[in-house]
C-alpha cells in the first residue's frame, strides 16, 4: 500500500499544454478516480504516474520517493490498459506469469502464483487460451490478473471498462469495487464515465482542459460542485443551469432575471449579490417538483421520457403571462420514486403541451457567479415573480 503525491505537474507537447499545475495526493488504500471529458488530460496524468510520460515540470512521488527519473518497472506500479494490452501470442497463463519469468522467478513458483491469481479471479479455465479466444470480460480479468501477480504498491487503471458492453461494464465495476475492498491497495482509476467515477471512487478528481476543477468524495462533489463545469459534468440528466442577471438585491432576497426574461426570486443570505451581476442558478432535475398551480415556476412540457422507474420532463419555463420573448429557458424535471407514483396514482403524469407548475427543493439549489464559481448561499430558496 502506498501514497502518491503529484506536485505542480505541467505537461506540454510543443506549444500545447495538456496538464496545468496539477497537485494532488492519493492516500493509502484509496481508490482515486480521475474523471473528465475526452482530452481533459486524465490519461496523460495517469501515464505520468506510470512513468510512460515525463512531466515537463513538477514532481511525482510514490510512497514518499521521488520517481521522476525512475523507469516504470521500478515504480512499484501495475497498470490495466484500456485495450487490455494482453500479449496476443501468449496464453492467459503466460500473460499473467510473464513478469515473474522476466524477473527469473523459479518456474514452479510462477505456476503456483499464476494458479492462485487465477483462482482468485475465477479464470482457471482460461489459462490455456490465447487472448483472441476470449471475450472482452475474460480478457479484462486476465489483464487484472497480470496486474495483480507482481503484488504492486499501486494499481493504475486506464479506462478499463470502456471496451465492454453495458451489462458487463456494470458487472465488472462491482467486481473491481470488491477487488479494491479485498486488496486494500491504492488505486488510480481513469474514466470518462461519471457513473463509474461516482460508484467506484473513494475520492474523485474532476479534470477539465488539463486543470483540476475539484477533488473530493463523490457525494460531496455531486452535492457541492465548486463551479459550473463540475455542476454540469456530474449528473445524468445534467443539472439545470439557468443563466441570468441580478436585477434587484437586498437583505435576504434577490431577483434574478433569466435570459428569457422570466424573473426568479432568490431567498438567501445573498448580501454579496449586487444588482447587475451575472449569475447562474443550478437546480438538479431530481430537485424540481411538480406542484399544484401555486408552484413557484410555471412551464410548458415539451417532451416526456418514461424510463420505467423515473420519468423525465423537458420543460420550457414561462412567465406568468406565458410570454418567453422567444428565448427558451429549458429545464429537465426528474420524477422518480414516490413523486412519480403519486402522480401516476392520480393519473396526471403531464403530457407534452401541458403547463406544469414547479418548485425547487429548498437548500438543494446552487448559485454560481459570473466567473462560474459557486456562491456559498445557505438556505437558498427560489420563487418566481413573472416576466419583466
Amino acid at each position, binding site marked *: 500500500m502506498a501514497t502518491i503525491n503529484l506536485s505542480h505537474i505541467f505537461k506540454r507537447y510543443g506549444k500545447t499544454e495538456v496538464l496545468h499545475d496539477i497537485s494532488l495526493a492519493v492516500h493509502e488504500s484509496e481508490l482515486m478516480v480521475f474523471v473528465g471529458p475526452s482530452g481533459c488530460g486524465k490519461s496523460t496524468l495517469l501515464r505520468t504516474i506510470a512513468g510512460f510520460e515525463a512531466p515537463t515540470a513538477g514532481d511525482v512521488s510514490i510512497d514518499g520517493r521521488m520517481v521522476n527519473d525512475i523507469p*516504470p518497472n521500478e515504480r512499484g506500479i501495475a*497498470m490495466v490498459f484500456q485495450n487490455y494490452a494482453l500479449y496476443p*501470442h*501468449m496464453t492467459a497463463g503466460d500473460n499473467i506469469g510473464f*513478469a515473474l519469468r522476466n524477473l527469473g522467478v523459479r518456474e514452479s513458483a510462477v505456476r503456483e502464483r499464476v494458479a492462485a491469481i487465477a483462482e482468485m479471479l475465477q479464470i482457471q479455465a482460461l489459462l490455456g487460451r490465447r487472448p483472441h479466444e476470449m471475450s472482452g470480460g475474460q480478457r479484462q480479468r486476465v489483464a487484472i490478473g497480470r496486474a495483480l501477480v*507482481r503484488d504492486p504498491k499501486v494499481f493504475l487503471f486506464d479506462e478499463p471498462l470502456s471496451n465492454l458492453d453495458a451489462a458487463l461494464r456494470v458487472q465488472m465495476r462491482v467486481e473491481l469495487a470488491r477487488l479494491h475492498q479485498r486488496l486494500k491497495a491504492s488505486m488510480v482509476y481513469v474514466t470518462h464515465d461519471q457513473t463509474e467515477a461516482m460508484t467506484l471512487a473513494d475520492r474523485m478528481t474532476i479534470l477539465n482542459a488539463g486543470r483540476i476543477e475539484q477533488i473530493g468524495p463523490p457525494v460531496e462533489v455531486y452535492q457541492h460542485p465548486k463551479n459550473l463545469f463540475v455542476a454540469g459534468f456530474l449528473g445524468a440528466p445534467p443539472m439545470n443551469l439557468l443563466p441570468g442577471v441580478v436585477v434587484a438585491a437586498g437583505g435576504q432576497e434577490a431577483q434574478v432575471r433569466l435570459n428569457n426574461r422570466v424573473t426568479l426570486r432568490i431567498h438567501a443570505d445573498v448580501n454579496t449579490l449586487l444588482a447587475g451581476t451575472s449569475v447562474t442558478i443550478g437546480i438538479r432535475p431530481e430537485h424540481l417538483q411538480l406542484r399544484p398551480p401555486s408552484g413557484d415556476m410555471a412551464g410548458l412540457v415539451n417532451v416526456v421520457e418514461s424510463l420505467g422507474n423515473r420519468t423525465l420532463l423537458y420543460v420550457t419555463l414561462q412567465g406568468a403571462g406565458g410570454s418567453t420573448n422567444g428565448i427558451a429557458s429549458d429545464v429537465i424535471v426528474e420524477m422518480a420514486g414516490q413523486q412519480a407514483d403519486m402522480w401516476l396514482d392520480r393519473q396526471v403524469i403531464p403530457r407534452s403541451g401541458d403547463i406544469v407548475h414547479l418548485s425547487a427543493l429548498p437548500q438543494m439549489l446552487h448559485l454560481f457567479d459570473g466567473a462560474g464559481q459557486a456562491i456559498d448561499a445557505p438556505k437558498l430558496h427560489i420563487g418566481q415573480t413573472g416576466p419583466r
Partner: protein
Amino acid sequence: MGRRIRAHREHYQAAALLAPFLVFYGTFLLYPFCKGIWMSLHDWPLLGKPGTEPVFVGIRNYADLVTDTVFWTSLLHTAEFTFMAVPLITATGLALALGLREARGSSAAMRAIFFSSGVFSVTVVTLIWLTVLHPVRGLLGQAFSAMGWSSIDVLADRRFAMPALVLTTLWWSIGLPMALFLAGLQHIHPALYEAAALDHASRWTMFRRITWPGLRRTTWLVIFIEAVMHFQVFGQALLMTRGGPANSTRVLVQYVYESSFRDWRVGYASAAAMVLFTVLITVSLLQFRILRQEDEG
C-alpha cells in the same frame, strides 16, 4: 420482380466495372501464357522465310532442357541468387524498419531515402553500381588504392560477381520490404510495449515475444514477394556481368532471353519459361497455404 431487375442491373454494373481489367488480363497475360505453352510444344523459329511454319515437336523441347547443362547452370545460379538475396533483403528490411519505426524528423527522411532507390530503372541502378565497383575509377577502386591495396575487378571475379549483383539488388529493392515491415509494425499496439516494460521485459525479450511474433505474417509475405521477384532476376545480370565471368552469373530469365532472341529458338525458350513459371506458381501456392495457416493460427 423489381428485386430481380435490380439484381440483373447489379450484375451488369459489376461486369462493366470488371471488363477493362478482364480485357487487359486476357490480352496481355492469359493469351500470351497459353500461347507460350503452345509454343513450347513446337520448334518455333523467331524469324523464318515466308512460308516457314512452326513444327509440332511434343515435349521434345522439355526433354532437351533436361540434358542442357547451361539451362541447369542458369537455374542453379538463379536459385543461388535468390537464396542469397531473399534472406539478406528480408533481414535488412526488418532492421531498417525497426530502426526507423518512429516517424520523427530524421527517421522520416531516412525512410524516404531508402525507399527512393526503388524508383530508379534497372539501367540507372546498374550504371551507378558499375561506377561504384569499377576497379580503377570506381569508389571501390579508389578506396582500395587509398589503402595501398591492389584493386580487384569484382564483377570479373567468380567469387565476387554474384554477391555484387545481390548487393546491387539489395540497394535497389530494399524500399518495399522496409515499407511492408513498417506497416506490420504499425499493427502492434504500443501499449503492448508499455505493458512489457512494466513486466520487466528486456528489449530483446520484447523483440522476441512481441515484435517478432507480431511480424510473422509480414515476414512470410516479404519472403514470398521477394522470392518471386528475385527468381526473375535479369537486368542486373545482363547489364553488369552479361552472365559472366564464365557463366557464373547467368540466370534463368537471361537464358530464356538469349535462347529466344540470340539463338532464335522461341519454342525452346518458351519451354524454359514454363519451368520458371512452375517454380513461381509453386512458391505462390506455398505462400497462400502458409499465410492462411498464419491467419488461422
